[in-house]
């Protein structure tokens, strides 16, 4: 920008004294400099994202195993992928995980934000405490929660040592419940973040609206439900998009917490993709699963983009 500005200044003062050609040059640079300065970013993100998306798409239709090969075999990899039970497990898991994670994080974040919005003493400190988990790496979160849920180390043992010998918390070693331990850890990680978003949203709500509704005779829950929540719609929407993409790309938490286990009960599309592409020498299948993930993510994002574009108009 400073460049563009100074050029404009020069162009204006020099208009009378400089030859026409210089003038034309300045006009050109003024027009193209912003575009030119954006170009490297565009180039990098263009290749690093879109070229590789296309490449992945191409690979998914080949018979690539350990290294990329360009022998096209149509939808074989997709067929092979859908035939494996493990992909079914991963797909079911991501649905359970994403829906619970998003819904509960939003609800909990909203609840915390509402509570924190009641002019609580030490709000800054509380806000920091709730937000803190977000600053942790998912690996750390995963390890900590693995310990907490481990029946021989964590809560169950703690309760046992306290004398509650019948207390059981063995979800993480139970194939049908282990997925929920991931949900809990992930919610712990991000509900504080949602809270901060929601709190910002609540702070934007004119307090007199709530007072007006109180005088109108509505109870506080009714006011939040009917009046405040609709006002938070944009915040909720952004939070959903952020949580949604965090859910879909979830990888590190699974690796750190259960590593897909017990068995492959907590496999997710991302860990599935990694296992097939890099450990099992089935790059084509891995690519196919990436393309499916991209497809689902796109389906989820289309409404968002649609609304953004409509709003832009």
């Amino acid at each position: 920008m400073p460049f563009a500005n100074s050029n404009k200044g020069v162009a204006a003062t020099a208009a009378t004294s400089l030859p026409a050609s210089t003038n034309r040059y300045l006009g050109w640079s003024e027009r193209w400099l912003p575009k030119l300065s954006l170009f490297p970013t565009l180039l990098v993100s263009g290749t690093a994202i879109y070229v590789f998306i296309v490449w992945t798409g191409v690979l998914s239709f080949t018979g690539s195993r350990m290294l990329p090969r360009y022998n096209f075999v149509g939808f074989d990899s997709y067929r092979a992928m859908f035939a494996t039970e493990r992909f079914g497990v991963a797909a079911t898991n991501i649905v359970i995980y994403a829906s619970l994670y998003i819904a509960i994080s939003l609800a909990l974040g909203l609840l915390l934000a509402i509570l924190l919005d009641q002019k609580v003493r030490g709000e800054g400190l509380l806000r920091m405490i709730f937000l803190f988990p977000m600053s942790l790496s998912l690996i750390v979160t995963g390890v900590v929660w693995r310990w907490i849920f481990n029946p021989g180390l964590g809560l169950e043992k703690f309760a046992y040592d306290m004398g509650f010998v019948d207390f059981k918390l063995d979800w993480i070693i139970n194939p049908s419940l282990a997925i929920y331990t991931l949900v809990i850890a992930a919610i712990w990680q991000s509900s504080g973040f949602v809270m901060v978003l929601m709190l910002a949203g609540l702070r934007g709500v004119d307090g007199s609206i709530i007072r007006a509704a109180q005088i109108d005779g509505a109870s506080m829950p009714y006011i939040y439900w009917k009046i405040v929540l609709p006002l938070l719609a944009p915040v909720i929407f952004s939070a959903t998009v952020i949580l949604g993409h965090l859910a879909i790309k979830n990888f590190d938490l699974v690796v750190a917490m259960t590593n897909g286990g017990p068995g492959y009960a907590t496999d997710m599309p991302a860990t599935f993709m990694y296992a097939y592409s890099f450990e099992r020498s089935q790059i084509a299948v891995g690519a196919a699963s990436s393309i499916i993930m991209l497809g689902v993510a796109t389906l989820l994002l289309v409404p968002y983009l649609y609304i953004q574009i409509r709003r832009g108009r």
Partner: protein
Amino acid sequence: MTAAITIKSLRKTFGALTVLHEVDLSIEPGQFVVLVGPSGCGKSTLLDCICGLSQPTAGSLHFDDQDVTNLPPRERDIAMVFQSYALYPSMTVRQNIEFGLKVRKMPKAERDKEVTRVATLLKIEHLLDRRPSQMSGGQRQRVAMGRAMARRPRIFLFDEPLSNLDAKLRVEMRHEIKRMHQLVRTTTIYVTHDQVEALSLADVIVVMKEGHIQQVGTPQEIYDKPANTFVASFMGSPPMNLIPARMKRRDGVAGAELLPAGGLPNWIKLQEPAKPIADGEELIIGIRPEEFHFTSERPLLDGDVAELTLPINVLEPLGSEYVFTSTVNGAEVSARLNAKSGPHPDGDTLQVLFEPRRVCLFDPGTSNRL
């Protein structure tokens, strides 16, 4: 449908800070009461206590005979119009107006009737399906009033409802509010910091300062007989001139020597005060700017007339009047003179007339009126 309000020894503190000191006030049913004062005077806190959004620290509050001191807002049967209008942004005008009715479980048919009634009254029928964001400030203000009126509460509260409007709309809405009150005759408490609004709207004005009520009275009483120098200077624009002086009778005629002594002029004629004041006692003389007249208006003035010669600082012709400022012994004095009555004055001084009986005297120690 309309209630009397009795406030007794109401006190409100926030921690160590006392916002309202022992406020006593009774309001008759149907009265339009304006609470006025500079910001921080406690008028909004008092309003919050009346509507129940804030709990008084001590004291009691009655609507008619009902003790409402500890009732939540929704059980007080009141309605309020806010400075920011506080319309529910996600609802249409219709939904805004019927929200309170819906909460009170009024059947749909009755609700519709009520919305129609209010909308007709306020001339907002064409706006019913709009959302607040699609309306102008004046329209929103009308909707906010409509929402308050739809419930037919026993008390209306207004919290600086006009301060977000431009000057022209403000005047228009002021008239609208006055019209609505004359129509429904519901007890109304109106908070403002604008003394013009207070004077034009109120049946009774309550002037507040630093958590104390300064004066309660009709607009005329407040204007003509301010209880103290604060009320005198707060109400009226430009404010009442307050000139320090010392009682000094000349030849048995009551009068005061302006302080500090010397300079021009140094003595003005007064009416003999009701309360005896000995010569030499200090006092503050209060004269409203419009009480000054060109000498040519002498025939229009009845009774005793005093004369005063003032040095001219600034003289602004404003068409209908001259606004004239002068420095009298260090104190700034302004005067509003009828332009029709006098030629454009020239020279360094101006001779003006006033009626001594229109002059207020204040005690410089307590600043109360003598």
